[in-house]
């Protein structure tokens, strides 16, 4: 069961985790949630995306993870638009029989979402705005899969 949601609205990570875990046969659930980090002078984060391609790219990544680690369920939620400091940006959840698979699948999803899903972050500060640069380490992280 694969769930993918791309939205501007906030989501309730706790409610998502509980709904995700309801009635599972699997014993291991891993979640990652990303929040807008409080980086000092930043006021907000603006996330641009590529409607259509975003959903396709995330669904492809999620299907890949589900097949590779025999996941019972996988969920990806990613927001776009303007987000305040401390706000939830995105979340992934994976459910597998054993913990190693649930962890690996969640890390795989995160590594691919970072560099292969068409989102672009811009930090809005008091003195202006700046596009977040992609990190070489994020690209390198893909080589382990």
């Amino acid at each position, binding site marked *: 069961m694969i769930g993918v949601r791309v939205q501007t609205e906030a989501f309730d990570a706790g409610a998502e985790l509980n709904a995700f875990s309801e009635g599972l046969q699997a014993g291991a659930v891993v979640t990652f949630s990303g929040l807008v980090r409080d980086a000092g002078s930043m006021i907000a984060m603006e996330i641009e995306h*590529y409607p259509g*391609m975003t959903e396709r790219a995330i669904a492809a990544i999620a299907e890949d993870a589900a097949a590779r680690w025999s996941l019972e369920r996988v969920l990806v939620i990613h927001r776009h638009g303007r987000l305040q400091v401390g706000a939830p940006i995105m979340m992934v959840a994976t459910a597998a029989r054993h913990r190693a698979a649930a962890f690996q699948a969640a890390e795989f999803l995160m590594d691919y*979402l*970072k560099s*292969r*899903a*068409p*989102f*672009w*972050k811009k930090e809005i500060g008091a003195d202006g705005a700046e596009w977040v640069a992609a990190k070489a380490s994020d690209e390198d992280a893909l080589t382990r899969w």
Partner: protein
Amino acid sequence: MIDILYFAWVRERIGLPRERVDTEATTVAGLVDELRAREDRYALAFADISALRVAVDQELADFDAPLVGVREVAFFPPMTGG
């Protein structure tokens, strides 16, 4: 006719999010050459191709990808999701 989409700072430099172009290029690289020749803002946006990524019909592609039958090409910087 091909739809061309721009995202993030590529969109900002070129000054528009999308446009429809009539092209004789047969590859993405050929299309980039045509765009570069148009105006300074295009030349600036496409100055360093290694800083850009391209999607053809919503799939990541290389700059030597063919344009035959393609409906949509998008240019953008490396993605920063997650």
